Every structure is written in C-alpha cells, then in structure tokens.
C-alpha cells in the first residue's frame, strides 16, 4: 500500500485521474473512519509524512433546518429565508426558488422582470468572483491583491445597492417578478462603473499571470481531471476550467439568458491558477451581459399580482449561481405553504472534488486548494489534522493554517 502511495504521490502533479482509489474497492473519495478523530465539527485531514492522504468532511456547522421550516411558512416568506442560505449567492437562491414555483403557476413572467433578474444575477456573480480573487490573494499571502480587489468590489456593491436597497441580501426576486424596477436615469452611471471594473479586471488578470508570489502557490496546484470531475458530478467554474462546457445559463436558459448573448468561458485543465483565470474572464463576460441587458431592457411591468396559493404539482429548477449549478425542487399540495422544498448548493456538489484535489498536497497548499473551489468561510475555520505515522493530532484555525502556508513558501517573511 505504501509503495502504491509513493508512486501515486509522484504522479500527483502530472495526472490525478484514478488517484483516489484509496479505498480500492470503490470509487468514493473518502477512506475509512479513523477512531482517533473525535472532534465532531472539524474537517479532518489525514497526513502521511508531508502529504495529505485523506480528508473527512463534516459540514453540520451551518445546518439550520431550512427545508423543514419551509414547510411551515407561506410561499412568499420562504423567499426571504432561502436567500439567507448564503450571503454571497443570495439572489441565486431566491431566483431558483421563485422560478421553481412560477412554473407551477399559469402566468407569464414579465419580460422586464427577466432582464432585471439577469442584471442582478450577473452583478452577484461579479461580486462573488471578485470576493474570491481577493480571498485567494489573502490565503496565498498576497495581501495587496486582497485589499485592492475588495476596494474595487465595493463599486459593484454600490450598483447593487442602488438597484435593490441592500448590498448583500437583495430581497429582489418575488413570485412572478421582481420587487423594484431599475430607475432609467441611473443606468448610464452603472455602465460607466462597469466599464471601469473591466479595466481593473484586465489589470488583475495580468497580475495573476505574472506575479511570482501567486504563480508559485497556484500553478500546478490542485489539479483534477475532467473525467474525475464528471464522475463526482461537479459544477460551475470548476468544470468549465477543466474544459467541460457546462453552464445552466447556456444549456437550460432562464430569466433573460435566451435574449442576451453570452460567451462561454472554458479553459483546458484545472489547477488553481486556471481557476483564477476562469473566474476573472467570467467577470468580463458578466459585465458585457449586464451592459447589453441594460441597453436593451424591454418596457413593461416588473411584477404580477398572484394569489398566495400554488396549484398542486412538483417542479425542479436550477440556476447558475457564481459557484455552479444551484438546484431547487419544490412540491405543492395546493396550499399556502410548500409540501417540500429541497436545496442542493453548488458547494455540496463540488465538495467531493475539492477533497480529491487536496490529496497528495502538503499542508502548506491546503488553504489555496480549499479556497480554489470557492467554499463557504466556515469550511476553513475548522480543521484538524492527524499524522498517521506518529498518531499526533492537532487543531488549527484557518488563520494558523494560512500563516503556516505563507511561511512555508516565503520563509523570509517569518518574523
């Protein structure tokens, strides 16, 4: 077993396909449970020597019980609860939910509402990708990138606030429309700001490709094959960076995505560096789509009045959230409250792939690789480690791990 492992560790950087037959009998990414690991709430990383051989996820720390609560709340009230599933892709959640419900109703969604939904969804994508690029800078030890990107990101949040009234939880989507219209006089200002964002993104794209601090920590790190991603049902920029042209906006268009031209961004192989390129290029595409939508917005109402009762039936709907396919399933028994609402977030879909990407890497690469799939903050706060040979067990906060990584790569920074 040890020999196979050493060989596979060498192969790690060249190919990761077939690497994780760690439990040789089946293809699932996790090994057997280790009795030494008692702390419940931590992501556990098992090390052999320097290298990670296994990762055991535990994600109950954000579980609040939304799906059950949704069965006891009216349809409209659930919008405000589900958008708070995640602060970063909150509009995607509300949009996927209302879309699933709308298809059970026999109304036609107003055209203007479709365009406004597209604009806000793409603004959210930009804010999320910029947030992520900044975080990558932070975790990789390039603090300046983090500060500069988040400063520019504020401009996007200004636009969101002007449209929705809030920066994070926009509460804009409602059943059969959006709650607010975009005031026409503000549109030229939005376009100007978005064009500025594009110039900044071009600058950051250059930084990502030339800055040695970043390259040394991201190139060749966190590789995974396209085949393995498909097997593990991964979604979002992760699969597009691997070359798989899958995007809900293009494959199964919703809102105004049928009416607004979109360039699909793909790369030819996943590592953290390509993921950075992928997301930055997606920001540029999003800006173009928003400008097009703002310039071609059809007139008309932005919402319809609908009764609070949804006819009997069930439906599934998905949207392309910033992190990937966000899937909602709703079932109605004809009443004022849902019978069932099921949410599958893109982070959950990508988690097996993320853990697979970690294997074979050293501890110093963990923050960069984990951040690479764009997970929730919480995942990084709680990490425990087991050294299989010495049976040594220890816990680090995310910050301690980050510092470890920086000092490992840049020992001159050690104080």
């Amino acid at each position, binding site marked *: 077993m040890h020999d196979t492992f050493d060989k596979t560790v060498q192969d790690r950087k060249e190919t990761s396909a077939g690497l994780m037959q760690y*439990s040789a009998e*089946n*293809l*699932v*990414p*996790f090994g*057997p*449970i280790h009795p030494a690991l008692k702390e*419940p709430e931590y992501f556990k990383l098992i090390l052999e020597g320097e290298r990670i051989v296994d990762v055991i*996820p*535990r*994600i*109950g720390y954000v*579980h609040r*019980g939304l*799906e*059950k*609560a949704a069965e*006891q709340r009216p349809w409209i009230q659930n919008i405000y609860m589900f958008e708070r599933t995640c602060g970063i892709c909150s509009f995607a959640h509300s949009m996927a939910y209302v879309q699933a419900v709308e*298809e*059970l109703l*026999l109304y*036609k*969604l107003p055209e203007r509402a479709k365009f406004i939904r597209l604009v806000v969804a793409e603004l959210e994508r930009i804010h999320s990708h910029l947030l992520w690029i900044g975080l990558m800078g932070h975790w990789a030890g390039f603090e300046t990138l983090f500060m500069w990107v988040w400063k520019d990101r504020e401009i996007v949040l200004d636009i969101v606030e002007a449209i929705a009234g809030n920066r994070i939880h926009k509460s804009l989507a409602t059943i059969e429309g959006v709650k607010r219209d975009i005031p026409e006089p503000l549109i030229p200002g939005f376009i100007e700001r978005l064009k500025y964002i594009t110039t900044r993104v071009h600058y950051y794209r250059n930084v990502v490709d030339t800055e040695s601090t970043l390259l040394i920590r991201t190139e060749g790190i966190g590789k995974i094959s396209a085949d393995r991603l*498909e*097997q*593990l*049902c*991964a979604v979002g920029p992760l699969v597009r960076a691997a070359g798989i042209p*899958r995007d*809900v906006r293009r*494959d*199964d*268009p*919703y809102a105004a995505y*049928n009416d607004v031209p979109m360039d699909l961004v793909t790369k030819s192989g996943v590592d953290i560096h390509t993921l950075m390129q992928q997301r930055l290029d997606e920001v540029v595409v999003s800006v173009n789509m928003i400008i097009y939508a703002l310039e071609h917005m059809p007139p008309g109402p932005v919402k319809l009045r609908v009764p609070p009762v949804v006819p009997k*039936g*069930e*439906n*599934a709907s*998905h949207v392309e959230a910033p992190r990937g*396919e966000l*899937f909602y*399933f709703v*079932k109605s028994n004809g009443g004022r409250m849902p019978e*069932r609402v*099921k949410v*599958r977030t893109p982070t*959950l*879909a990508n*988690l*097996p792939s993320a853990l697979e990407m970690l294997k074979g890497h050293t501890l110093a690469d963990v923050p960069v690789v984990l951040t690479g799939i764009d997970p929730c903050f919480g995942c990084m706060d709680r990490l425990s480690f087991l050294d299989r040979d010495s049976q040594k067990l220890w816990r680090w906060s995310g910050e301690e791990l980050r510092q470890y990584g920086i000092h490992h790569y840049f020992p001159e920074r050690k104080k």
Partner: protein
Amino acid sequence: MARRMRHTVETSAVDLFTLIEKKLSPANAKRETGSDRLLVLRVPQDQIIASLKLLTEELGLKHLSTITGLDIGDSIELNYQFWHSDRIVDIKTSISKTAPRVETCTPVIPGAVLYEMEVHDMFGVTFEGHPWMDRKLLLPDNYPKDLPPPLLKGTSSEKIRKAVGIEK
C-alpha cells in the same frame, strides 16, 4: 403538472424522453406526470440501481444533480434528479418507511456520496454499501438516536429543538 415557459420545445427533447422511457422499460419504469422539460419515471426499488446504470452508462446522463427524499405518507420516496442539456430527468422509487434500506448507487455514480449521506441524515434511509452510514453529514452530533429523522412529517421542529438543547 408543471409548465415550463422558457422557450419552445424541440422535438429532439421529446424523443430523448421517449428514448429514456424505452430504455428503462425492462426495469418496469412507469412515466408519471411531468412536463415537456421534466421527465418523471418511477421504478420498483429492486430496479433502481439497474435503472441508474442504464441511464448513466448507456444513455450518457452522467450528471446527477441531487437525490431528493420525500415523505409521502406510507412510504419514503427517493428521487434521483439528473440534469441533461435543457431537461431534468427524475428517477423515483418508493421505499418502506419502517425499514428504509436501499442499495447505494455510489459505485455507479461516485458523485452521489454526499447526497446519500444527506438523505440518510434527513430521512433515516440506510444506503447499503455506502462507507459512511454510521456518520453524520449535517445533523448535530447530539441528535438523539431515538428521535425520528427531521424531515419525516411526523417529527416536529419543537421536539428537535428541545432534544438538541436549543430550548429547555
């Protein structure tokens, strides 16, 4: 019945649904009401793995979006939901509420590993052959063993809150 109003249906999509239905007919698949964009097929429990194999290996529908559990009163419904191009395909099966066990589909679809754990947590379904059935993904560690799983209709939120120590 759900109506999708995004864009016009292409006949090739209708053919896809017919093709799937035909392919899965040896597994006793029965079509239920969906829409022009949502295919719903129900198979008996003992045919679920065979059906998933046919779908993924012979028809190329590899992307499983999720596995949705549903308490439909006298049984638990498992809904394996696939996304293919601009269609969604639901393969449903019903399993006993008193002895909720079904074979794991992870050898066929490794990506289902966490979805099965979620259904296990929420509905108490045991996926035989899944490596982690004695482990929780989402529920707190102090969720009592004798309390029914949360998403069964009979389990009340108040009871859970008291049992896990949120309320006295």
